[in-house]
Structures are given as structure tokens and as C-alpha cells.
């Protein structure tokens, strides 16, 4: 079989079943909603929060300190203790350790100074402290920002396409993308940080790009069949997502050695981009094809 034949087979399959295909994202979406509700009732929130969203201290200490040992010994004294070692990229030599806890700053500093045996000052360490009140504030506002961004994005999409169903299709795809990413992040047990939430905001932007590409090509081009248009859009769209995933994946390898924040941002983005492939080319595609076929008749 050559590629022509395979293409024909895929097109025939899609033409027959594209509406049924919607069951796939629909079921994943429903499962996600269900998961989120049970998550909420178990944890009183939709995400696990790290110190930057629930209050606490993060201390980065230079030097070769064993993270596992520290965690073992101090987890009884420091609440919600979390450690991570940081490395030099090239020599793979351990350069320091990042310690996160929801305990208060002065107390944490004292406990750590006792543990390492020397004074922690600005020459050998960095501190970040945020009060519980402020972090709760940040959390609420970042959520507000994400919802506002959604709203504005939706309005812009409507203005661009001026037709109801295609615009809704785009918005549904982006919503599905964010929700599925959220669920995956929860399943992995990742504790979200404030910058991590900002990554979701970035994801909205990346996700909507491929959907706009698809919808634009289908609605505004007048030559070729729907399938041809979808196929061409797919070629471009997949290239876009692939380069993004490639770029972020390579950056992820580099930053995972020294920054928790950047690691989290990039991880959220990669997960989101994979779900974007699913949601743009299954969910959005089926919906817009449905619209076009209906519209044509």
C-alpha cells in the first residue's frame, strides 16, 4: 500500500466516523470533570499548592548537601518539606539544594542553620518567604486572571470568526485542553506554584493558535474539499506543536538542573501541548467538519 491508499482509507474512515470520534474527547472530558470533583472533595481545591500559593519559605543553599538525608531528618520539624538538588549543567556536580516548606521563615532558617552547622547569609544562600495571607491572595488573583484571559480570548475569537458554532468549537477545545492538563498535573501529584499557574495562561495562548489556524483554513479558504483543507491545516499545525514541544523539551532538560520554577512552567506547557494535539485535531476538527457539512446542505 502506498501513501495515497493510506490517505484514502483515513479520509473514508474520518468521513464516516468523525462525529463518533467526538465520543473520545467527550468521555475523557467527563472523566476529567468527575476526577476534579472528587479531587476537590478530598483536598478542598482543584490543585495541590506549593509554598508560593499556600504560604511558606523556600531556601536555596549552596554546597554539597544530601537532600534525602536532610528530608529524612527534618521532615518532623518542617511542615510539608520538599527538597531538590541542583546541578551544574556540564560537570553534573551538585551545586546546591532547594528546600521548600510551609513553615515560617525565621524558624526554618534557624532549623537549617542548626542542621548544616553554619550561618546562612546572603553569600551562601537565598531566601523566599511569602505569608499565608498574601499567597492566598495571589492564588485567587491568578485564578481570576486565567478566567479573565479565557473570557477575553473567547470574545476575540467571536470577533474573528463572527459565526457561533466554529467560535464555540475553538473555545471548547481550549477549555478541554486546560482541564485535561489540570487533571494530568494533579494525577502526577505536582504541587502548583504561582509561576506554574502562569504557565496555564501561556497554554491558553499556545492552544488557541492551532485552533484558529484550523478554523481559519476551513472557513475562509474556498478552494479544495473540507478534507483537503483539514489535511493541510494538520500539516502546518502539527509542525507548530512539534517545534514547540521540541523547544520546550530541550529547554526542560537544561533547566531541570537548576530551577524548580522553570521546570514546572515547562512541564505544564508540554503536557498541555500534547493534549492540544488531541483537542485540536480530534475535538475541534470533528466539530468544525460537522458544522461545515451541515452548513453546506
Amino acid at each position, binding site marked *: 500500500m502506498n501513501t495515497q491508499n493510506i490517505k484514502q482509507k483515513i479520509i473514508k474512515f474520518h468521513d464516516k466516523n468523525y462525529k463518533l470520534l467526538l465520543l473520545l474527547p467527550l468521555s475523557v472530558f467527563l472523566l476529567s470533570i468527575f476526577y476534579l470533583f472528587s479531587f476537590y472533595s478530598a483536598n478542598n481545591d482543584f490543585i495541590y499548592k506549593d509554598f508560593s500559593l499556600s504560604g511558606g519559605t523556600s531556601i536555596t543553599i549552596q554546597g554539597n548537601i544530601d537532600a534525602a538525608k536532610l528530608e529524612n531528618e527534618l521532615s518532623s520539624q518542617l511542615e510539608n518539606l520538599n527538597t531538590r538538588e541542583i546541578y551544574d549543567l556540564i560537570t553534573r556536580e551538585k551545586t546546591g539544594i532547594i528546600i521548600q516548606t510551609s513553615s515560617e521563615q525565621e524558624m526554618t532558617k534557624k532549623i537549617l542553620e542548626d542542621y548544616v552547622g553554619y550561618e546562612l547569609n546572603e553569600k551562601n544562600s537565598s531566601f523566599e*518567604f511569602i505569608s499565608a495571607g498574601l499567597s492566598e491572595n495571589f492564588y485567587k488573583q491568578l485564578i481570576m486572571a486565567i478566567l479573565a484571559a479565557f473570557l477575553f480570548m473567547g470574545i476575540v475569537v467571536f470577533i474573528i470568526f463572527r459565526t457561533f458554532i466554529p467560535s464555540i468549537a475553538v473555545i471548547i477545545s481550549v477549555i478541554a485542553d486546560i482541564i485535561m492538563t489540570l487533571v494530568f498535573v494533579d494525577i502526577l501529584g505536582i504541587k502548583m506554584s504561582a509561576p506554574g499557574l502562569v504557565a496555564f495562561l501561556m497554554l491558553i495562548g499556545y492552544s488557541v493558535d492551532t485552533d484558529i489556524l484550523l478554523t481559519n483554513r476551513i472557513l475562509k479558504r474556498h478552494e479544495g474539499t473540507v478534507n483537503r483543507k483539514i489535511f493541510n491545516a494538520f500539516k502546518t499545525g502539527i509542525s507548530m506543536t512539534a517545534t514547540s514541544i521540541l523547544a520546550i523539551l530541550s529547554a526542560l532538560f537544561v533547566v531541570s538542573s537548576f530551577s524548580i520554577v522553570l521546570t514546572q512552567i515547562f512541564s505544564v506547557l508540554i503536557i498541555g501541548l500534547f493534549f492540544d494535539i488531541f483537542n485540536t485535531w480530534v475535538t475541534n476538527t470533528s466539530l468544525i467538519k460537522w458544522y461545515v457539512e451541515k452548513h453546506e446542505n
Partner: protein
Amino acid sequence: MIVILLLSLLSIFGSPTKIFQEGVLVTSVESNSTASNEGLQKGQIIEFVDGKKVTSLEDYLLIMNQKFPSENNLKTVINTKDSEIIFFTNDFPEITVSEIPKTNLVTGLDISGGSRALVKPQDVSLSSEETNDLVDLIRNRFNVYGIEDVSVSKVSDLSGDEYVRVEIAGTTPEDLRALISEQGKFEAKIGEEVVFVGGEKDITSVARSGEQAVIESCQKSTEFYFCNFRFTIFLSEDAAKRHADITSKLGTNSSADGNYLSKKLDLFIDGKLVDSLFINEGLKGQVTTQISITGSGFGETEDDAYEDAFNSMNRLQTILITGSLPYKLEIVKLDTISSSFGDEFSKSILIAGIVSLFAVSIFVFLRYRNFKSSLALIFTSISEVIIILGIASLIRWNLDLPSIAGILATIGTGIDQQIIILDESREKSSSINFRLKRALVIIVAAYFTGLVAMIPLYWAAAGFFKGFALTTIIGITAGVLITRPAFSDIVKKIQKD
């Protein structure tokens, strides 16, 4: 686009002559020191010391270390670009210098190190004007304490709360926490009666140097060293009269050291007793405007004790001069970032960027099989980063961690959009101009969705992510207005060949 690229490079690195400038930059001059009295100012560049050329920080330190400290006052000649400054001193001139920064990029605390605090009044909500007053008061406190290089500003967020944000680049003062949040309510009482309080109404001036503000002596006790300080404060007439009234009613006690009044002068800061001074019999009923305040610092070594005493004296003087805050402040966020992390960090970010770009270029080459297109894409992306950095240095924007994340985000969207253009250019239908216009439509649509997504972020979370929102917005705007059209032109040219 080439023009803008060059302008951006110019903006980042400064004029070409600056790159070749040799010397060290004066980052601060102690006020009232001999050097500042002769005219040396912050921001000047020292090129020669005593006729010897200074090309780096090491040169400067070498020369200074060879001269000081010395027994006699030595003549020191410092040449800057436009002036010559001569002064005599027997110890290190109170000047801090640093290497001349290579770029005009203003790096945020996350990279260059420093401290940042967010404070808000406890249990009280302030009007806008009251917050502005608070900002001035805090800045004043830092300046009086001796820290000039501090940025104090008002910040508000989406929920309407207002905070004061304090940022100090470079080294962190020992008592940053205390300096910011201590209410600094100072009271001097005899018994239950208040004689005077901190602030300019009761205290007209406070001696800060010379014979009237000294660290007197240091001794060793069993485990620690103690150093004692003493400084004079001058009371206003009202406060002095109050002192006279209250002391006139007291009796006297005799002791081995002399005759003192029956009650002591108790000093309270924020309700805590910090010192108790004996009042000499001779002062009973006298309108005295001079009061000597004493105290001590301690430490494990004599140097530590000396430094502790110095800091305590400084803090006390600051509180007495600036008076107290009418309310308590709560520190809701405090970050102190070591400057040593900064260089590592920048290096690593650069490597991450290069690795990503490399991975993407391989993909692009494989997909399009066209060397020129791939090259154009990479070139455009790199230019975009340079342009964003150029704009950032032009507006002196602080590049912190969120800003850098924003730049990374823009590179991603930029590459996406270039792929849209590339694909469009490879189609065989219609004219190239028409196709490129179609691509641009999609790109503009994507631009607006990106723009509106970033706008709420600009104001959320007490402005901590402003950097991200701003660099992303600058990036995508520069993308749509400059690099995307430029890339289209390049693609058009490639197509023609």
C-alpha cells in the same frame, strides 16, 4: 528590520565607545567623607589612581591595599574622565566601586541579587494618600540608616489591596526585617510619665558622628564580648521642660558612684524596655536639652560585638530621628537573593535557549528541506529576542525571572507563526503576496488572543508577574509589527530564487 535590530543592539550595549571604556565605576560614595567633599560622585568612572591606570576591579583594589591603612594621611589622586580629585586620608577612601557593567540591561533581583519585601499595615487599611506617606516614611528610614540605594513604591493588586514594596539591590542590611517592620515607637519614661518620644517634635537632633556618638569601649565577659556605645540627643524646649517638671518631684539616692535620682529614665521601643538610665542628681528640676543615650552590642568576637553595637546604635538613632509609624507593619513577602546565583543562572538560561533553538532548527531543516528557510527562521527568532532585550534596556525594564519566562514564551509563539508563513509560502496556488496576506490574517488573530490573555496578568498578584506580561506583550507586538513582516519578505525573496 535590520535597522531595528541594530538599534536594539545599540540600546543593549550602549554606544560603541562605551565598550572600549576602561576603568571602574563608582557605585557609592559615603556622604561627608573626604572623597565626596572633594567632588567624587556616584556614577563617575575612575580611570587613574595616583597616575596608575586602572582597568579592572583588581587593579583598583591592588593600589588601595598597598596604600592603606597607613599611619599618616596620604595624598590620593583620582582621575575620572573629566576631573581630577585630590584628597588626604589615612584609611581606605569610603568609596565602593564595581566593574563597569557590560550591557545596559537592568537585571532584576533574581539575577543580580538583593532583597525585596512586601509590607502592609496590620489590621488597618490605609487611604491612597496614607500609603504614599508610608512609602516616604519607609524610604526616609532607610536613608537615615545609611542605605541610599533603596526603591520603595506603592503596589496595588486586583483585589484592591495596597502594599508597599521595598527593593534593595546588592547586599542585604543585617536588620532588614527590623528596619522595615519595627513600628519604632520610642518612649522615654520616668516611672509612668512620658518625658519624650521619638520624632522631630521632641527630639530636635541626634548626634551621629564625631565625639558625641561613639562606641566607647569593649570588654570580654565570660562567653561574649561587649561593646558600649553612647550618643547625645538634643531635646526640644517642651520636652526639656517636661524633663525638668518630672525630675523635680523625685528624691535622691546616694551610691558609691555618686548621687542619683530615685527613679531612672526608662527607654521603651515598641513597648519593650531597652534601657534604663540613671539620672544624675545635678539634673533634678533642670531644663536640660542634652541627654546621653547608652547601650551595648555583643558578639562572639570583639569585631562582632563592635559591629552589633554599631548597628544597634544606628537603629536607635534612626528610630529617634524618624519617629514611629502610627501602626504596625506586617511583612507579607520577603526574598533575599544571593548574587552568586545570578551569573550561574544567566549562563544556564542562555544554554537552555541555545539548545532549544538548535533542536528546532534541526526539525525545521528536516521538514522543509530548505537550508535558506531554516536559516531565515533561526535568524528571525534570534533577532526577536535581541529586539525585546533592546526595548527592555531602553525603557530600563527590570529583567527578573518572570520577564525571562515571558521572553521564552514569545520565542515559542514566534516560531509557530513563522511556520505558518513558511507553509503558506510553499503552496502552489495564487500569488505569493496573496498567500502571505492570508498567513498574516491568522497571525494577527493569534496575536490578539495572546495580547488579551496577558492583560489581566499585568495587574494580578501585586504586580509580581508584570515582568512576564510586559515582555510577552512587547515580544508578540514586536513579532507582529516587525519580525513577522520581515520574515515574510525574506521568504518572498527565497521564493523568487
